[in-house]
């Protein structure tokens, strides 16, 4: 079982979700985050104080998948998320020790989907 954390551009969320759904990945958790990356932030100006805030709005997806879905999930994200510019984001993948569905108590692969 794998846990995918993907940081993407906010306006790509819909597209990525749609692409994942095409690949039968329907379950995920979404968080509003600020990302600090290679992408230079947009300069902000407040009463003459100019600051390049390099914290940019991003969206973080967390997706738990069975091993056989991992490649599909990655491919879907890789397809829908990029614009080709710096700031497209990253995918981080983790081994997951266990997964439990709270409602039923099901565990492991059964619980993921």
């Amino acid at each position, binding site marked *: 079982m794998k846990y995918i954390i993907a940081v993407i*551009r906010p*306006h790509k*969320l*819909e*597209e990525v979700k749609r692409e994942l759904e095409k690949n039968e990945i329907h379950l995920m958790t979404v968080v*509003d985050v*600020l990302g600090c990356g290679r992408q230079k932030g*947009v*300069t*902000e*100006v*407040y009463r003459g104080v100019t600051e390049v805030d390099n*914290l940019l*709005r991003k969206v973080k997806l967390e997706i738990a998948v069975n091993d056989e879905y991992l490649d599909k999930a990655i491919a879907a994200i890789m397809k829908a998320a990029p*614009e080709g*510019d710096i700031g497209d984001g990253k995918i981080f993948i983790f081994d997951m020790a266990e997964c439990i569905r709270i409602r039923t108590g099901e565990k492991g692969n059964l619980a993921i989907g």
Partner: protein
Amino acid sequence: MINAADTVWMLIATALVMMMTPTLGFFYGGLVRKKNILSVLMQCMVILAVVSIQWVLIGYTLAFGPDKGGIIGGLEFAFLNGVGLAPLEGQTIPHQLFVCFQMMFAVITPALIVGAFAERIKFSGFLLFTILWSTLIYDPMAHWVWASGGWLFSMGALDFAGGTVIHITAGISALVFSILIGKRRGNGTSSSPHNLPFAVLGAAFLWFGWFGFNAGSALGVKGQTVSAFLNTNTAAAGAAVTWMILDWFVHKTPTALGVITGIVAGLVAITPAAGFVTPMASIAIGAGGSLLGFIFVSYVKKKLGYDDSLDVFGVHGIAGIWGALATGLFASKEIGGTDGLFYGNPHQLWVQFVTVVVAIVFSAVGTYILYKICDLILGMRVDARDENIGLDLTQHHESAYTLVD
């Protein structure tokens, strides 16, 4: 002769109408995405500032300066030259106060259009367009309908508080503009309003301000003032209830956005009629504006596929047209001195119809031309990257809200 009570009323009415433009910013701003609210507020505040200046320099005189052939005002009052405190003929308030009151109408009209191009316009292009539009579309239009000597005025067009001059003109310009600038990227998905309470706040204060807008258009404290006041309220109420019921039947649920949209549609619809109709007629006019607005916003827009971000056309244009025509139906001599169709005067409806057509054609053509010019000079639409990041950051280098702090 100056009348003190009239003057007091007009001072307040003017202040109320001034307040409507920022308030409109909140009505609109609450409905856009988080990354674009400041751009909407900014546009409204800048219009308030820029048109206030334009008006005292040149706008007022174009609209209300001594008539030149029914078409435009002369430059006699440019820079408010010779505009003092003595009242104009037929008026009872200081001339400068009339300037102020009319100024606020000149301000809010282009601000209404903001809803059409929200979330994708370049600020510089917006600014140029606004200045040109105010001077070349609004000012002549105001002259035609409201200035004694204006050709539509001479025809006997009834437009109590600006249904034609303001709402139709703005609504049609919005439609043309939204077609020309094109759809928002990724429109249709996840475009829920980012802060509906702000939109409710805006609608509530628009209602409040509209008392000044409509009842102030009597230019003093008369019977018509009170009629207009009461009618404004009942029309808004009737329209809100209508939209709520439609929402409930059609979409199975009454929504807050529906109610506030209805309110605005009702206020728009009653605007030209406010001082001419009975309270019961005002309910009907409000309800009619709401019904037509509902149909346009829910069905026609989807069909036609243009992207009028915040339904300026559906709400202001359609309800404005309805209101102008309804004035020709419901006007009653007892209230405002002129009868409409229902009181046996079909001619009035014809006059209203002509006015509406003129307003539509003039503003459509004018907006088309001005858009093309501004687009050529400065460009009107931001590029994809800027639109994705949002106008607040790319046009103004500011964020409305902080995420972490």
